């Protein structure tokens, strides 16, 4: 008899938590030792603060790249959490006994490296790369999931989850749970050993845990006054604590840890080593029921809530159905020898009685009831990393705290000064918020997503969608490596981006990011990098993208109180270059011309937006492209369209150009290509010019049959994306030219092709364009 009391549990087990408290009341120990990494002991005082509300987690992370993390989630009904609470309520000291997180991280690092090595070796052996799923180190850690599959096969319920719930969560008293869990753990252990499952890491952990128990006893506490709370699996392994053994030195990776709020949603997605908790909200109901002394509480509450949620979703669900479902669930439980329905009984009963046999009808309601949207809370300043502190301080300062929920909410920001505000700080509150959210965006923290804005308010408004997830918190903690505050981390990130990119437009993006974040230093750093990069040879479309971004920065800079003076010269420089190389860049095929026309459009809008750019240079370049015959005709047409739009081409000039481009001698595909380019922009302006359509009509009339067929293909393409309204207007024009009724022509143009015409047109696809 070892004397030390062991209480085997499963992490996240309501009955375990409830009966553990009873057990502790009965034993009245002097010391409680819990299976949690021993270096987490400093978090106890924060865990116990009254503002702390589960679910929360302790996150440990390495201080060097690559960052490895481990997470220890706790819910209200975690036995470990309740044990810690019990100890503080009864003035009993508590101790953690698992390997320190540094060692866990080192072990998991080793494992990942080993796995990578294996993949590499496999790749060398056979060239075909094997598909390897990114295994989550935490789920493969500890016990092998195969054991649980064995249980699933053996148990009458066909699932180890249901087996556990039916046999242990529904235990009627502490003794039954205590014995049951210990037996369960012992059996699992035996099963694993029998199946030769490698438990190297478990062995290491148990050596360490035994030494902790030994030391506790050596320190003078009588073994009978010690309660060890551990995973049921380890009970057998720890019972031999009395035997002295050498404790090896464990590998360590320098690491830090922090408390973080957690969510039920996230808890449900991490099934971990068989101790999964796919239905945290339901388990909380069991916990509530145990505390109320009503063992059917969870079943009643589950079905009523499901019915309520079903009604909220717009489907009918009556109380009668709930009662029937409850009876059915009871009958199902009885068939398996239980008195209390398990989750699977309840879900099946809800499907049968509320969903009328189809799970789809109740699936959403069930998920809401089982998982829920609960998020934990931590008091301010609780052992967070400095970047978390900064984050939460800013959240509070910027009055964003109410957006920290798992349901997405939209936030519309007005970046202009609020002239009615009393202080300068509140006048620019939205701008400060925007800076902050942009910084989060740069850091990849998925808390805020920028929604596309509408044209009319693009200069001064931003719309964000905010939704808090534990993942966001994890990324935030990982960002601690980049800097101690959100701003420093964002600055570091921008610097990283600039240093590691070769594309000018990416650097321009970084510049824009820096301006959006309101970080002038980072911005000027990025600008100088941009200047250096801009001196190199850059393709035309890169220039265009960069100019577009820079122009944006300058346009919206004022509203963001940013100093854009350094950007202007770069934009100017790029602008000149663009004007110079445009015509030579317009030698390309039709596929590339798409990108080119986009680029031309971007430069055009940049030029229109910025007064300091010399308009003449751009017009000159456009004229050149428009008039030269040796360039891609589509682009020439597009250049002409821009000129027309800017009123730099008169009607007469257009007429001349049209007849020149569409004269009989010019191959039909080139002519039609030009026309297509012309139609890419400013359609209404073009439709209004009757002379254009006359020229087109004349041109088509002059073609012979073969030429007409060829032109038809291209013209069809040019008109393909015209709306029917636009086609109507074209029809009116043609009607006027031909002296016909516009409506009749429109009807012909807008009608779908009949089979015969379709066949003729299909025939044209095979048409040989080479002459």
């Amino acid at each position, binding site marked *: 008899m070892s004397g030390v009391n062991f209480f085997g549990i499963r992490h996240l087990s309501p009955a375990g938590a409830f009966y553990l408290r009873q057990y502790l009341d009965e034993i009245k120990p002097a010391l409680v030792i819990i299976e949690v990494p021993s270096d987490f002991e400093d978090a106890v005082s924060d865990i116990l603060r009254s503002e702390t509300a589960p679910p929360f987690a302790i996150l440990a992370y390495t201080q060097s790249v690559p960052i490895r993390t481990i997470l220890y989630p706790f819910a209200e009904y975690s036995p470990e959490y309740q044990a810690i609470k019990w100890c503080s309520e009864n003035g009993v000291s508590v101790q953690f006994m698992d390997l320190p997180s540094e060692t866990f991280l080192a072990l998991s690092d080793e494992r990942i490296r080993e796995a990578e090595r294996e993949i590499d070796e496999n790749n060398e052996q056979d060239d075909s790369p094997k598909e390897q799923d990114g295994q989550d180190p935490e789920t493969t850690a500890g016990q092998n999931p195969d054991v649980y599959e064995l249980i699933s096969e053996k148990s009458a319920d066909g699932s180890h989850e249901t087996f556990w719930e039916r046999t242990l969560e529904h235990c009627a008293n502490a003794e039954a749970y205590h014995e049951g869990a210990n037996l369960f753990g012992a059996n699992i252990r035996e099963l694993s050993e029998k199946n030769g499952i490698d438990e190297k890491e478990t062995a290491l952990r148990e050596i360490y845990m035994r030494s902790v128990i030994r030391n506790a006893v050596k320190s003078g506490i009588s073994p009978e006054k010690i309660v060890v709370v551990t995973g049921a699996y380890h009970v057998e392994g720890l019972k031999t604590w009395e035997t002295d053994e050498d404790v090896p030195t464990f590998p360590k990776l320098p690491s830090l840890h922090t408390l973080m709020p957690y969510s039920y949603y996230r808890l449900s997605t991490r099934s971990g080593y068989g101790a999964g908790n796919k239905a945290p909200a339901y388990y909380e109901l069991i916990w509530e029921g145990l505390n109320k002394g009503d063992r059917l509480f969870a079943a009643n509450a589950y079905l009523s809530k499901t019915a309520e949620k079903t009604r909220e979703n717009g489907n009918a669900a*009556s109380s009668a*159905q709930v009662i029937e479902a409850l009876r*059915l669930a009871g009958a199902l439980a009885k*068939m398996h020898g239980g008195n209390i329905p398990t989750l699977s009984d309840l879900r099946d009963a809800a499907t049968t009685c509320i969903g009328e*046999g189809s799970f789809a009808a109740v699936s959403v309601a069930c998920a809401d009831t089982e998982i829920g949207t609960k998020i934990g809370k931590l008091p301010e300043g609780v052992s967070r990393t400095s970047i978390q502190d900064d984050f939460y301080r800013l959240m509070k300062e910027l009055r964003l705290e109410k957006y920290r929920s798992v349901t997405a909410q939209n936030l519309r920001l007005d970046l202009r000064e609020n002239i009615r505000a009393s202080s300068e700080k509140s006048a620019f509150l939205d701008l400060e918020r925007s800076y902050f959210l942009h910084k989060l965006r740069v850091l990849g923290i998925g808390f805020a997503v920028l929604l596309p804005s509408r044209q009319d308010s693009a200069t001064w408004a931003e719309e964000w969608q905010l939704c808090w997830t534990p993942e966001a918190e994890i990324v935030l903690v990982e960002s601690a490596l980049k800097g101690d505050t959100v701003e420093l981390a964002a600055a570091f990130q921008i610097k990283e981006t600039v240093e590691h990119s070769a594309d000018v437009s990416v650097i321009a993006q970084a510049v824009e990011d820096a301006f959006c974040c309101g970080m002038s230093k980072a911005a000027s750093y990025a600008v100088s990098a941009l200047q250096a990069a801009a001196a190199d040879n850059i393709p035309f479309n890169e220039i265009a993208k960069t100019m577009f971004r820079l122009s944006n920065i300058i346009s919206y800079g004022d509203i963001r109180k940013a100093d854009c003076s350094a950007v202007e010269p770069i934009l100017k420089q790029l602008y000149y270059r663009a004007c110079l190389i445009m015509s030579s860049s317009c030698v390309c095929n039709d596929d590339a011309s798409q990108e080119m026309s986009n680029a031309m459009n971007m430069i055009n809008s940049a030029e229109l937006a910025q007064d300091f750019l010399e308009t003449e240079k751009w017009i000159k370049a456009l004229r050149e492209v428009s008039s030269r015959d040796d360039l891609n005709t589509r682009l020439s047409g597009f250049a002409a369209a821009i000129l027309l739009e800017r009123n730099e081409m008169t009607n007469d000039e257009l007429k001349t150009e049209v007849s020149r481009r569409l004269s009989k001698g010019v191959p039909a595909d080139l002519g039609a290509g030009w026309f297509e380019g012309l139609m890419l922009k400013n359609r209404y302006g073009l439709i209004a010019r009757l002379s254009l359509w006359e020229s087109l009509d004349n041109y088509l009339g002059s073609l012979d049959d073969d030429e007409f067929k060829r032109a038809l293909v291209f013209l069809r393409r040019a008109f393909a994306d015209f709306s029917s309204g636009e086609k109507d207007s074209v029809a009116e024009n043609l009607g006027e030219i031909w002296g016909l009724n516009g409506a009749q022509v429109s009807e012909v143009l807008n009608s779908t092709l009949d089979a015969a015409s379709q066949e003729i047109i299909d025939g044209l696809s095979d048409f040989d364009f080479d002459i």
Partner: protein
Amino acid sequence: MDNSILRLPAEQLFEEELNALIKAEKDPIPEGWRMSPKSVKTYICGGKVGKTVITPKYIGHERLVEIAIATLVTDRALLLIGEPGTAKSWLSEHLTAAINGNSSRVIQGTAGTTEEQIRYSWNYAMLIANGPSEQAMLKSPVFTAMEDGAIARVEEISRCASEVQDTLISLLSEKRISVPELSLEVPAKKGFSIIATANTRDKGVNDMSAALKRRFNIVVLPAPETLEEEMNIVKTRVEQLSESLDLNASLPKDKVIEKICTIFRELRGGETLDKKQKLKAPAGVLSTAEAISLLCNSMALAGSFGNGDISDDDIAAGLQGAVVKDDKDTVAWKEYLENIMKKRGSEWSGLYRACRELNE
């Protein structure tokens, strides 16, 4: 067992198994039942009792069977819904055989089913001669089930006219039947319930009213999920059937069953099993039940006109009949032959040739 009977009811066919289960019963038995719910499940899903092996009657979703049995424990009526050939009637027959030892309290729903057939009617000769009396009354299966505290079956309930279906509403909620002619009220004994089956796919069905649906617990029986599961079902059933039918032919080989199930699953789903090719789906249901009867049919052909081994020609004849129900199906079937089966290599070539011959 009497071998001259074409189809024995389940409780006679599996009498031994039922007796073994009743003998070995340890769990509490609900009132009006012959065995505990657990034993009913063993009877249907298979297992072992003492030395007697219980053959599985329903293969696949054991959980659905559990839900069905649990429903009957709670004295709720049970409605089995599913595509044709998903063993609805089969399951309902075996449930009643196990629970009551009598699966013959059946009302077959048709377009001509009347309200009287569900409640009671009269022997008119006696009615006219002696006036209304209990002797002159013809009790429906539901009526007798209420008197005996047993389960009545209503097959194809959705084929009855709506007003006839709704007769069941009062029976199910009041749990009593009244005979105003005799000023008589017959309350149902404990153990009374109804198992109804309905079909989701057939044409010419009448939707059930919401009021009636609410009085049932609905269990949807799905088509077999995997090829292996379906093959298993087909194999078991063909074995059982061929025993009672004396077909004089050897049982189909696994390869043959696999081919049939593959063809049925592909045509049913409208795509090949590897999901690489879309197919035209014929209008017919192509249920598992049809696959079973197709194979029995082929065995009969082989036993009567061949050498006792199922040949490709025997299967082809059956397939043609099962797949092609109208002209449009011919096109779908021909396309399937040319695009899919022809390209499946030598193992399928015999069957392909036999099928093509029938379509030339």
